[in-house]
Every structure is written in structure tokens, then in C-alpha cells.
């Protein structure tokens, strides 16, 4: 298994496609932070204009933490696409290239091979999220300094600077988990297809469709919302509540892990029976 993991890792990082996510994130974060540097202060003033009548704000409000928080908000829609680009290709890309045939004629169990690919897909997802965290936090801190964080989650929360490292760490870890579901979804479709474009497009289409259902408060949608993974994608914001709701967050984490387990089981069911005809 270790050999398989190393081989999959080697293959992953020998492909130029794998670097697209890192380059894109670097560029997007750079552009956002540059924009905020130019006009962020005016924007923030506008946002808290009404609040200033009742509250007195002191200190550096437009700081690296706020920038990281804003980057997180704006990127959770785009990061899944970048992740699906690689994880949706893990099996189908090999089928398309004919190299799956090459792998399956070696003394390697199908389940072992699939597990190795899946774990590498999750590792890649974790690396992308970690890169997002490092670039947004690092560049934010460098350009805007530090301070308390003002967030609008259920109410106005002022999170003291001292609490921010663990809250961001938890938010990014949760974000990594939710992206793991996206990776699992793309991976599942990857086992069904012999071309990589199909799984990537299907994953993005499902993500968009489910996000719409998760956010529109209509009776029929409300009944399915608790079962959709997209309902829990933005729950990372819960780590910035004054009191983090442990039970609620635990349930969300459990549901996301459940989704991943079901999707991997589905992928294994398909792959173990798959005829390699390409």
C-alpha cells in the first residue's frame, strides 16, 4: 500500500494539471488582497457606517484576519472546481489514457489501487486548502497587519485576536473536510466514466444544483436540505460565532464524513466490477 501511495503521489505531482489549483489560488488571493489594499478601507467604512452611531470601533479593523475571512467567503465556490479538476480525473483520466489497463495488468488489487488513489485525492484536497490558508493568511498579515476580527454571523461578533489562530485553524480544517466531500463526489463519478471531462462537469453541476436547493428557503427544499452536503459547506462560519456550537458542528462534521464514506463505498462498488475496455 505504501508503494502504491508513493507511486500515485509521484504521478500526481509530475502532472502540470495538478498545479493549476495552486497557481489559480495564488493569483485570486493576490488580486483580492490587492483590491482590498486599494479600496478596502472605504468599503469597510461603508459597511459599518450605521453601526458607528451605536458603537465605538477602535484599532485596525481591516487586518489580515478580516482579509482571510473575506477570502474564505469568496473562494468556497471556486475551490471545488479546482479540486474536481484533479480528483475527477484520478480514475477516468487513467481510463482515457489507457494507463488503467497498464496498472490492472500488474499484481495490484483493485481495492488497494482505488484506496491509494482516493487517499491521494484527499491529500491533494488538504494541500490545496492548506495553500489557500497559508496564502490568504500570510499575505493578509503581511499587507494588513493584525487585529480583532469583526464578522457578521447571525449577529455582529467581535472575535478577539488571541482566539483567532485556533478559530481559523478549525475553520480551515472544516473547510478541508467539506472539500473532501467534493473530492469524493468527483472521485465517485471518475470511476463511472472513461473520460475525465464528464466527472468534472457532473460534479460542478451537482454542486451548483445542490447549493441552490440548500440556500432557497422553499418548503419542499427545506425537507431535503439536511441531507445535502452543500447545506454544510459554509458551516465553517460557525467557528466564528461568539459561542461555538459544538453539537451543531459535530453533527455537520459527521454528515460530511458520512457523505465521504458513502461516496467511497459507491466508487469501490463500481470500480471492483468495472470492465476495463479502454
Amino acid at each position, binding site marked *: 500500500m505504501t*508503494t502504491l501511495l508513493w507511486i500515485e503521489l509521484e504521478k500526481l505531482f509530475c502532472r502540470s494539471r495538478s498545479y493549476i489549483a495552486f497557481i489559480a489560488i495564488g493569483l485570486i488571493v493576490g488580486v483580492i488582497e490587492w483590491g482590498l489594499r486599494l479600496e478596502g478601507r472605504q468599503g469597510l467604512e461603508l459597511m459599518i457606517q450605521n453601526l458607528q452611531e451605536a458603537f465605538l470601533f477602535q484599532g485596525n479593523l481591516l487586518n489580515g484576519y478580516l482579509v482571510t475571512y473575506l477570502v474564505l467567503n469568496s473562494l468556497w465556490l471556486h475551490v471545488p472546481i479546482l479540486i474536481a479538476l484533479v480528483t475527477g480525473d484520478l480514475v477516468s483520466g487513467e481510463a482515457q*489514457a489507457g494507463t488503467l489497463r497498464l496498472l490492472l495488468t500488474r*499484481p495490484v488489487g483493485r481495492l488497494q489501487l482505488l484506496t491509494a488513489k482516493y487517499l491521494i485525492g484527499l491529500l491533494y484536497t488538504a494541500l490545496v486548502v492548506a495553500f489557500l490558508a497559508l496564502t490568504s493568511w500570510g499575505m493578509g498579515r503581511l499587507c494588513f497587519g493584525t487585529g480583532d476580527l469583526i464578522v457578521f454571523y447571525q449577529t455582529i461578533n467581535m472575535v478577539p485576536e488571541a482566539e483567532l489562530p485556533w478559530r481559523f485553524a478549525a475553520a480551515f480544517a472544516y473547510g478541508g473536510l467539506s472539500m473532501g466531500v467534493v473530492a469524493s463526489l468527483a472521485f465517485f463519478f471518475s470511476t463511472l466514466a472513461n473520460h475525465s471531462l464528464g466527472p468534472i462537469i457532473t460534479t460542478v453541476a451537482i454542486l451548483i444544483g445542490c447549493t441552490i436547493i440548500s440556500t432557497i428557503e422553499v418548503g419542499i427544499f427545506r425537507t431535503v436540505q439536511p441531507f445535502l452536503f452543500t447545506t454544510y459547506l459554509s458551516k465553517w462560519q460557525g467557528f466564528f460565532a461568539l459561542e461555538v456550537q459544538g453539537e451543531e458542528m459535530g453533527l455537520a462534521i459527521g454528515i460530511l464524513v458520512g457523505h465521504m464514506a458513502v461516496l467511497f463505498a459507491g466508487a469501490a462498488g463500481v470500480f471492483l466490477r468495472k*470492465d476495463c475496455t479502454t
Partner: protein
Amino acid sequence: MTAHACIIETRALQKWYGGIHAVNDLHLQVRAGEVYGVLGPNGSGKSTLLRLLLGLVRPDAGTITLFGLPLATHHNRILRRVGALIDKPDFYEYLSAYHNLALLSRLSGLRLERQQIMTSLEQAGLAARAHSKVKTFSQGMRQRLGLAQALLHDPELLILDEPTNGLDPQGVADVRALLLRLNQEQGKTVLLSSHLLQEIEWIATRVLVLRQGQTVVEGAVRDLLGRSSAQVRLVVDEPQVARRILEDATEEVQVLEANNGHFLLSMAWDQVPVLNCHLVEAGVMVRAIIPMRSLEAYFLSIT
């Protein structure tokens, strides 16, 4: 494995692709140390059969046994002893030839030294391009790399699908010589499919002819050729005497063309040496007896 033990055995093998019966009730036995050819027109089930034997596709019914072990339950153990080249040789295009072989050897559970991989590439005539990315390779180079990867772990059984596809005439001759050498000197068993009848005729000891997934005929190449009616070009110095001898053997020899000592005959393959004896005994100088693609004629007559 004892000599002539059965290395591959299938029983009542069936495979459907949707409504297409790709392999239909196939019984196959390949013995240790033989070169076994699988022939058939396009869509006859050759590639599906080879994929079934490697576990790439699952049978709908029937059993597959390799080295006396059921493939369904001993997949990894069996594949350690098998080298395969199926369909066109595809590799990781973004990796070099060397890197591809290194990676595949690790997948086979081997820890090959750099020199061993380089030797493998040298044998395939690719040493000079060892560190070039595979995406820069021609079809012939890929085919040679495909053979190198199949032989990398020194397997006892080779399963090869059209192994000379895309090679130039010298490449075809090299591969043929390599397969014969591996079979005769190292005792490797070879199962190969090909649409090149001549290739099968020259190197296979036994042959299976498939049509619509079913066995049309199976047996030793020599026996099949003996059974077949071959076309033979005969060149002699005494055309009148030769003509008389040929006419005397009316039932066995048909004269298709005759022109100034050049005859085109249709006759049973195993009667060719007999005719030669008769001609020589009658004092006819036989300048040439040229068989005209015998297996092809037989193949066309049965498919």
C-alpha cells in the same frame, strides 16, 4: 510447473457487452512452453479473450485458470507471473521511458536497480531515449517500450495483443526473433493474438481461430496447414513432363495456371513433398516450389 502442464485453461467462458456476445462458450487450453496464436477477423473476440485472461474484464459465465489457480481468487499471485501487452501500448505521457518502467517495476513488487532498467531499455532499442518523455515517442517506439514493460519482471507467461503493431519490417523481425528466443531458450509460454497470419504461422505452435466469440478451429499449426488446400507456385525445366505428372495426380493437384514451366497449383499442403519426389524421380529439374500464404488461404476458407 511440469513440462506441457496446462498454463491457461478456460471452461465455458462467456462474455456479453450489452447485446453483443463477445466470447461464447470458449474452452481453451494452453500448455507450458508453447507459442499459442489467436486469430480471427475484427470483432471476433480476440482482445476480449485476452482481457478476460488478465482480469481486465469479468466473465459473465465460465471459469479461467492460470498456472492451475482460479483467476477470480488468485489474481495478484497469477499476475506476478504474467507479462502483458494489451491493445496499443499506453504509458504516462508526461513521464520518461525510464520513469515509466521504474514505476511499473515497483508496481510489480520489484526493486530494480537503475542498471537493470537501462538494460531493459537497451534490449528494446530505447536506451538513447531513456530519459525522453513518452509523449515524444513514435508508435513503433511505444510498441517496443510496451514489450519491455511486459518482460520487465521476467514473467513465465506472455500475453500479447498484436505485439508487432506499428513496427517497421525490421522491428517486426526483431520482435518475432525475440519471442522465439524467449520461448525456445527460456521456455516462456506465449499467447499472442495477431491479424498477421504469417506471423502466427511462423512462430505459433498451436492456433485458435475465433469467429463471433466462438472457436472455429483449434489445433497445431502443422496439422491445420496439412488439412488446408494450399496454393503452390512451381517452376520446372521440363514443362511437358511435369504437366503429365501433374495430370496423373488429378484428384490431389489442380493446375490453376501454366505458362512455360511456371505452374500455379492448388493442392493439399502435405502433398507438396510427395509431388516434389515424383517430379525429381521423373527427371524433372525442380527450380522452385513456393507456397502461397497457406494459413491465410485456410483462414479465409473457414471464417
